[in-house]
């Protein structure tokens, strides 16, 4: 008797479980995974990109979600470490995400690909700039939609050619990315037959850049290229440039577009030109700025735009795929053409032509100039 009752109970329980399971599938959200760096060296970049992604998901849900389902963003912290990044990717795959976005360091994103390649999970980075991310591993499930490092160099060089600089100085820092950026700039300058008359390093933790800038002053260049990526050290350089009375055009890499400069380098910025992928005059940017301000209660800037565009590109692919089936989503993502986002110059768009998996328009970056202490107008477009 007891046994019969027990088996009946078991049956009933099983039935309830099945019912519960079907009910959740019907309204199960579409999960997107995001791997960020909350405590490591990429934090100053990864945090705002993540904010942009969070905002994009809120906007999607406010407009009814995706394929009639709510969108849920699962955020993992990899501390900028490749090993943890791969573990985070594994965890997200186990949570059944439809797509993974990586916004941490380039090496971490590379390592996370080992998981997404094996599990055939769609994976992209909206912000990493490493040139070899899509070529180092043959992973058809991975895309890169931020501008490549080589694109920012080509854009700034095209501006320098326009200005006909012949003798230039390079100054960088001793961070990995700073050294890498400097190496690429140097190679490109040499290829363009522009003479490098001074090359200096201001190491992380310096308290002054005076000796380095004295050497630059002595070399008397026609322009100074800043290839470092550490904001405090770059501020030191600008302070020394001003202190030592160097009258030379300063050309900043992408890092100079970080709006924090308007706080810490106040009074030092006027006339400095810098590469950016954000054109405030673009209609998409205006809509984004307004929406972000309302929803997140803060003024957005370029880095927020990367996270936003990343989520929107993924949403577009899932919408066209009509499901979260990994193969269908992969095909849809690869078929992306002419997607106009927040980032990129007016007239540029994202797309993966000719089987490439880098989606940013090579002529989509701009050169802008600081006017007073504000990031001002666009003075040059593209890398032609």
């Amino acid at each position, binding site marked *: 008797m007891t046994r019969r009752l027990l088996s009946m109970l078991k049956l009933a329980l099983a039935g309830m479980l099945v019912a519960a399971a079907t009910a959740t599938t019907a309204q199960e959200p579409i999960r997107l995974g995001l791997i960020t760096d909350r*405590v490591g060296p990429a*934090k*100053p970049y990864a*945090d705002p990109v993540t904010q942009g992604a969070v905002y994009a998901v809120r906007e999607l849900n406010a407009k009814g979600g995706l394929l009639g389902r709510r969108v849920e963003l699962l955020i993992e912290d990899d501390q900028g470490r490749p090993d943890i990044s791969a573990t985070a990717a594994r965890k997200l795959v186990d949570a059944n995400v439809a797509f993974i976005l990586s916004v941490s360091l380039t090496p971490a994103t590379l390592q996370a690909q080992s998981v997404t390649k094996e599990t055939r999970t769609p994976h992209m980075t909206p912000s990493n700039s490493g040139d070899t991310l899509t070529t180092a591993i043959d992973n058809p499930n991975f895309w890169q939609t931020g501008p490549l490092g080589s694109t920012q160099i080509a854009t700034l060089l095209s501006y320098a050619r326009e200005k006909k600089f012949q003798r230039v100085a390079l100054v960088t820092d*001793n961070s990995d990315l700073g*050294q890498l950026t400097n190496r690429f700039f140097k190679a490109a300058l040499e290829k363009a037959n522009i003479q490098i008359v001074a*090359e*200096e*390093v201001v*190491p*992380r*933790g*310096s*308290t*002054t850049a*005076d*000796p*380095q800038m*004295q*050497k630059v002053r*002595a070399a008397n260049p026609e322009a100074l290229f800043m290839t470092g990526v550490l*904001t*405090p050290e770059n*501020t*030191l350089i600008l*302070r020394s440039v*001003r*202190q*030592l009375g160097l009258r030379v055009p300063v050309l900043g890499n992408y890092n100079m577009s*970080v709006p*924090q400069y308007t*706080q*810490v380098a*106040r*009074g030092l910025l006027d006339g400095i030109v810098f590469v950016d992928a954000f054109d405030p005059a673009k209609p998409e940017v205006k809509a984004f700025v307004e929406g972000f301000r309302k929803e997140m209660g803060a003024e957005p800037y370029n880095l927020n735009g990367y996270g936003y565009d990343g989520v929107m590109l993924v949403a577009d692919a899932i919408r066209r795929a009509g499901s979260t089936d990994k193969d269908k989503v992969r095909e849809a993502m690869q078929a992306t053409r002419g997607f106009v986002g927040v980032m990129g110059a007016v007239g540029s768009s994202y797309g993966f032509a000719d089987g490439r998996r880098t989606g940013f328009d090579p002529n989509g970056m701009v050169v802008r100039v600081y006017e007073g202490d504000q990031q001002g107008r666009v003075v040059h477009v593209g890398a032609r």
Partner: protein
Amino acid sequence: MGDFLELVVSASATGCIYALVALAYLLIIRPTGVINFAVGEWAMLAGFGGFVFLFTLNLPYALGMAVVVALMALVGWVTERLTVRPLVEKGAPPLAPILALLGMLVVFREVVSLGFGPDPQPVPPALGHGRLELGPVAGSYQSFFIIAVTLAVFAAAWAFFERTLAGKTFEAVAIDRRAAALMGINLSRVTSLAFAAGATVAGLAGVLVAPNVSAHWMMGLPLAIQGFTALVIGGVGRVEGALLGGLILAFAEQFTVRYAPVPPGLAMGVPLVLLIVFLLVRPTGLLRAREART
């Protein structure tokens, strides 16, 4: 020549910052034997103090600086109470407080990174960002201000140790803790004071350097390393050693970058070579402690 003198001012200012950090180490090592690598984070905390009181609240410079310095003394005192004293009272081995303070280094840094975010923040200089030219000698206002404040601090520290009874109790504890305790010197009071003074001096270094480097959560560790190198060069025996060590280190750094024919990436290795040479050849530093006087 103009370049040379300009660089002398710049290197002196940097050397003074290193010297203050070295003095912060020294004030704690002398009476307690504890090497506190968190001095760099104390400088960082004070940098953010400068951001809050001098930039955000926009207090007058002297008042803001006084508030920050007072808060730093409190931070030093509390750090000792919470991390060092319980270990000493429980009879932990001498390495334990050093490790506990390394833990505090991480705590300070992460608290700031969570509280203020990863971006650098501005801290205003004492007298503006202008440039002072005295004949061929030229440098920023802040450089001259740093040098003046540092000399005053070192003069005060020297007078304290050489001319006051409280200073003599520090010296006595440094020479022989047990004997000093037997003479009725309150060891725990000396320890508390040492940590409060160390944090104050490290904090001064932070507020002084922050207008140049801006306050950011990663600024502590390089200062801690440079200050420690300066201490090794100068020796832990006497306060003048910290000043001498800081200046030698900064001059070596900046003159190598400016004049030595080495590739730019290698110049930053020179101070480390200096550290190794001193550890090998003269591990007690340039200035030795005086012998116990009778």
